[in-house]
């Protein structure tokens, strides 16, 4: 039967429209309303109680800057600044200040250790590691594609 004739197209459109017009809406799942209400409740909670992705831009930027400052401080680059501050504290400070400064000493030593370990890794090893990660990722994607195509043909 040739379906390309104009009169056939008109009748087909009329019949299809009549049938489709009578279709009622599909019933939404019963859980939909509860899901939406839960999502709205989550949205209404303060930004700091939600995940980092939902923080306001200034808070995210502030956090990143703070983290960078801490990393810089721990990396030992700020040793001279820290040493002068430490001497000042040791001269004028009491017991609590001494405790804080000894805690800072531990953190500084830890930061130095991490930096010296990172600096001790040969460049070739780093490149080899990156290449291995890339190879593993590519293998995983290829495996996924193969599995998808195999399963979708079944």
């Amino acid at each position, binding site marked *: *039967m040739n*379906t390309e004739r104009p009169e*056939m*197209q008109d*009748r*087909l*459109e*009329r*019949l*299809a*429209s*009549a*049938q*489709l*017009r*009578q*279709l*009622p*809406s*599909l*019933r*939404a*799942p019963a*859980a*939909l*309303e509860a*899901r*939406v209400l839960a*999502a*709205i409740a989550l*949205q209404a909670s303060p930004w700091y109680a939600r995940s980092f992705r939902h923080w306001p831009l200034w808070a995210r930027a502030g956090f990143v800057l703070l983290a960078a400052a801490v990393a810089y401080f721990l990396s030992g680059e700020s040793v001279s600044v820290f040493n002068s501050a430490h001497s000042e504290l040791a001269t004028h400070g009491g017991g609590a200040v001494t405790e804080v400064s000894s805690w800072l000493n531990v953190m500084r030593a830890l930061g130095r250790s991490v930096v010296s370990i990172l600096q001790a890794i040969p460049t070739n090893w780093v490149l080899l590691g990156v290449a291995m990660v890339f190879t593993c990722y590519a293998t995983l994607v290829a495996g996924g*594609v193969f599995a*998808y*195509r195999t399963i*979708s043909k079944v």
Partner: protein
Amino acid sequence: MRKYQDMVYSTAARLTNDPAQAEDIAQAVFMKAYERFDELAEAPTAPGWLKTVATNLSLNHLSRYRKRLSFIGDWKRDEDDEEVELGPEFSLDESQFDTVADDERQQLIERALQSLPEHQRVPLVLFHFSEMPYQDIAAQLKVSVAKVKSDIFRARATLLKHAAIRNAHEH
């Protein structure tokens, strides 16, 4: 929300043909509506707004899904040379489904709609349920108007053929 949830869910479910995805899209639609609650609460355009957002989110989902599948290399855009043959089970007689009860006929059509390939189902749903003109559908789907008309025509033929075959088999 209760008043419109079936309409929003139906729009997404018929476009995506994926109940779980349709539920996610319906949730996103109501979240967007909540953000604009003051504007929409008493607006007579609220149902239209909800339907448009549901349609756009569904089309965005289909577009992303298509990109992923084309990356995997297992998605055929469409079959331009396919020819729909209605066959002997089918006639364009408007009374052919009259012997079937309403709810049964609706189920036949709904199942036939779900069985359509995406490139036929999506323009058909946009035309008949979202009442979009051919030009808008073509713009949304980034294809020519002639292609949209051809796909909708084939979709109608396939839909009614599938429904007629199911009807013939079940009775």
